[in-house]
């Protein structure tokens, strides 16, 4: 056999060379199929697509397109709520009971009818599972023991929801637009439920289909989820049983692509129709090649926060000085150009009562004066935990330079996202730079996390951002925040938040730098591609293709 080796070698190496040449033959380019929308999107944050469990931003977009809720944000005015499955609703005089009437003839993707029993089951399931987003419902006084009573079907088309305090109706309805309030198909879910052992902290003998629902689907939205493969793709197909306007495209594929540069290449070559994570440099480049851009401000603010356990950072003068030591103008003009705008208050634009005051500017002299007053004329050394992604790395470096001008030496500790977060949650950081996205589209979400900290000890149960930075919030501020929650008059409620934002801006250990603008580049072949005001309103069903 070895006898003829030389011949085989020649034949094989020649064919290998031919193979290489063949690959070099120019090819007509394969565009995305005409009935399919392909988006390049960093979806590595998805860990489950069960709406009763999911709490991640990318998942919110998937579930928003595949599930229906009782109510949804009015896309044209996000301070209002309109019916989704619910045709109408009423509130009792004492402000505690909400009665929803369902639209007639609704069906799940499975073909099963949608009844008030499914709605009640969805609420019960989310509360009993008690996963990350369950607090959105349990904050209304729901518990595993009383949920069957508080959220129940009175007939096939009527669902009543009873809460424990007369909260502002705007607050209650806003919360019900969140992913966790998605309505699931009781029959399909329970067919896949698994028996589990009862334990001390889980008192039920079923997993309510959670294991299957992590990758499964039981909803009624314009699209149905066909598959989610971690770090690879989400594939959705049009739901023929959807009650509303039928989606224009048969399929939508979210393809996981981490890097901006990769998305840019793929978009320019027509391998994807939409690029969702383009950085400023790539945005400029794709625009020159005829790619269209669309953007929408999102409910996410980027901030850095000063751990009050650090005795230098705890001095009020230092806290104030820090706010003068950020070059907001330069950051706005370069690092976040197109993907954000300078915003210094804790409520993002678009939410009730949000202020757009940006009083702070880079002022080194003023900061030095404040530091001298704090007895830190020669500055000090401090660390900042920074996750190694843009734009936070760039902002951290910019802040490092401006702090140095006032004699503060900032050491940047780069880390992977989970690593910096682990440290932040344990309160062992000095300065942490990160972002906060509203849990639901209501001012209370941010107000609570930035201004409420009932127990500042390490054992504190309520681990808000204020707690994570060991900020013992003045009682006056927490009380205002809690009071706003019960204010029925929307205008008065807005006024409370406006006042609160000013005070927090002046004294809190949070240096809020900008509000995120989500921007996407898309192929000119697409029609009606738009981003919504929040992650769970990025709807794809109106999109069509030439």
């Amino acid at each position, binding site marked *: 056999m070895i006898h003829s080796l030389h011949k085989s070698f020649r034949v094989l190496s020649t064919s290998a060379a031919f193979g290489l040449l063949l*690959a070099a033959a120019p090819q007509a380019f394969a565009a995305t199929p005409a009935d399919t929308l392909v988006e390049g999107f960093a979806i590595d944050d998805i860990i489950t697509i069960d709406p009763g469990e999911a*709490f991640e931003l990318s998942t919110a977009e998937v579930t928003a397109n595949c599930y229906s809720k009782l109510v949804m944000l009015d896309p044209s005015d996000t301070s209002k709520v309109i019916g989704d499955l619910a045709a109408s609703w009423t509130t009792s005089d004492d402000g505690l009971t909400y009665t929803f009437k369902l639209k007639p003839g609704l069906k799940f993707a499975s073909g099963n009818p949608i009844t008030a029993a499914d709605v009640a089951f969805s609420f019960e399931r989310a509360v009993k599972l008690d996963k990350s987003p369950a607090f959105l419902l349990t904050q209304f006084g729901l518990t595993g023991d009383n949920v069957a009573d508080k959220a129940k079907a009175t007939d096939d088309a009527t669902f009543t929801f009873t809460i424990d305090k007369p909260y502002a109706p705007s607050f209650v309805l806003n919360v019900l637009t969140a992913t966790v309030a998605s309505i699931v198909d009781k029959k399909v879910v329970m067919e896949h439920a698994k028996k589990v052992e009862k334990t001390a902290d889980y008192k039920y003998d079923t997993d309510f289909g959670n*294991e299957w629902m992590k990758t499964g689907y039981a909803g009624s939205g314009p699209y149905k989820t066909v598959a989610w493969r971690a*770090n690879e793709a989400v594939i959705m197909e049009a739901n023929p049983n959807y009650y509303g306007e039928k989606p224009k495209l048969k399929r939508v594929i979210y393809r996981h692509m981490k890097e901006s540069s990769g998305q840019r290449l793929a978009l320019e070559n027509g391998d994807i129709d939409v690029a969702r994570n383009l950085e400023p440099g790539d945005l400029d480049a794709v625009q020159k090649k005829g790619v269209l851009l669309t953007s929408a401000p999102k409910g996410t603010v980027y901030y850095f926060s000063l751990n009050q356990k650090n005795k230098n950072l705890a001095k009020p003068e230092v806290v104030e000085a820090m706010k003068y030591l950020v070059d907001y103008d330069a950051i706005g003009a370069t690092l976040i150009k197109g993907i954000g705008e300078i915003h210094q208050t804790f409520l993002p634009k678009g939410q009730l009562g949000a202020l757009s005051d940006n009083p702070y500017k880079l002022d080194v002299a003023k900061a030095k004066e404040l530091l001298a007053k704090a007895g830190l004329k020669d500055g000090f050394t401090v660390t900042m935990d920074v996750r190694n992604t843009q734009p936070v790395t760039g902002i951290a470096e910019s802040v490092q330079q401006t702090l140095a001008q006032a004699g503060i030496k900032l050491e940047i500790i780069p880390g992977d996202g989970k690593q910096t977060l682990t440290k932040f949650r344990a309160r062992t950081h000095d300065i942490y730079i990160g972002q906060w996205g509203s849990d639901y589209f209501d001012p209370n979400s941010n107000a609570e996390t930035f201004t409420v900290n009932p127990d500042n000890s390490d054992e504190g149960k309520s681990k808000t951002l204020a707690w994570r930075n060991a900020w013992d919030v003045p009682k006056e501020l927490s009380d205002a925040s809690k009071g706003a929650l019960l204010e029925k008059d929307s205008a008065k409620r807005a006024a409370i938040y406006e006042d609160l934002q000013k005070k927090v801006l002046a004294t809190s250990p949070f240096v809020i730098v900008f509000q995120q603008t989500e921007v996407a580049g898309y192929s000119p072949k697409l029609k009606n591609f738009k981003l919504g005001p929040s992650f769970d309103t990025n709807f794809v069903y109106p999109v069509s293709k030439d």
Partner: protein
Amino acid sequence: MAVLRFFVTAATTFLGLLAVTFFIGRVVPIDPALAIVGDRAPAHVVERVREQLGLNLPLYEQFWIYLKQAVSGDFGTSVLTTNPVMADIARVFPATIELATIGTIIGALLGVPLGVLAAVKRGSIADQVVRVIGLIGYSVPIFWLGLLALVLFYARLNWVAYPGRIDIVYEYTFTPITGFYLLDAIWQGQWDVFWDLFRHIILPGGLLGYFSLAYISRMTRSFMLNELSQEYVVAARAKGLSETRIIWFHALRNAAVPLVTVIALSYAGLLEGSVLTETIFSWPGLGLYITNSLQNADMNAVLGGTIAIGVVFVSINLFSDVLYRTLDPRTRSR
């Protein structure tokens, strides 16, 4: 006896591998509970998951529990994909094997002849050219060359397909059977799918092939130089055998014995070491799986992947030993 010794060695290797990976995974300053519940989970949910995972137990106890399950074939469930780790590995490993096989085929088919050529024409221009090709392959980092190749062949020239294993279009029409897509496509006679797969694999496969070519051609050259200076070659020449026959039949046959080990090791290296290539080319193989899992503190998946690589490495070593014995009659009697 030799078989027993082999199993003891293999078992010790795996135990060590597991222990090191496990403890490194646990001292990394990332809370694995966060990987399960996500960044925005409330504190009590994080704490409950920590309890469930047994993360509050002492390290050695956690390791003991893991070991007991692993021996019974249960490598746990991946947090990220929610599948059993072994099912995940069975899904991603064929992609890596396919890529590494293409790479090794290219590397061996081109590397051996080039090495022989360089040895025979020692000192000539041809030798120098082969040397430079090898040197570049040795010293240029693959991520750099990979990105450069992507920019050139994908972005500028559009000759090859986007990073990934298969076009989105075919993900619906093509049902793989074995997981080796190229073979599956041939088997099913889906030539358009085969062409698409080929356009995807050729760039990463070619790059890996180039790197293994660099190694194999250098080794071939030195083995061949060694053989060509032997007395039997002089004797063969004296007998009047043709130069082609001396080189390709006599010398290469003797050089082939150590060469098999070199190729096998380079194959094993590609199987475990294509993490960077897989990342750059979004190749859904074992390397990318382990990298993603590591970034998510998904330790069951990382440990499972490490074991899989260990098994492959040990088997390839064993296999090349056996092959060595068949090729070299002298080792058989021992």
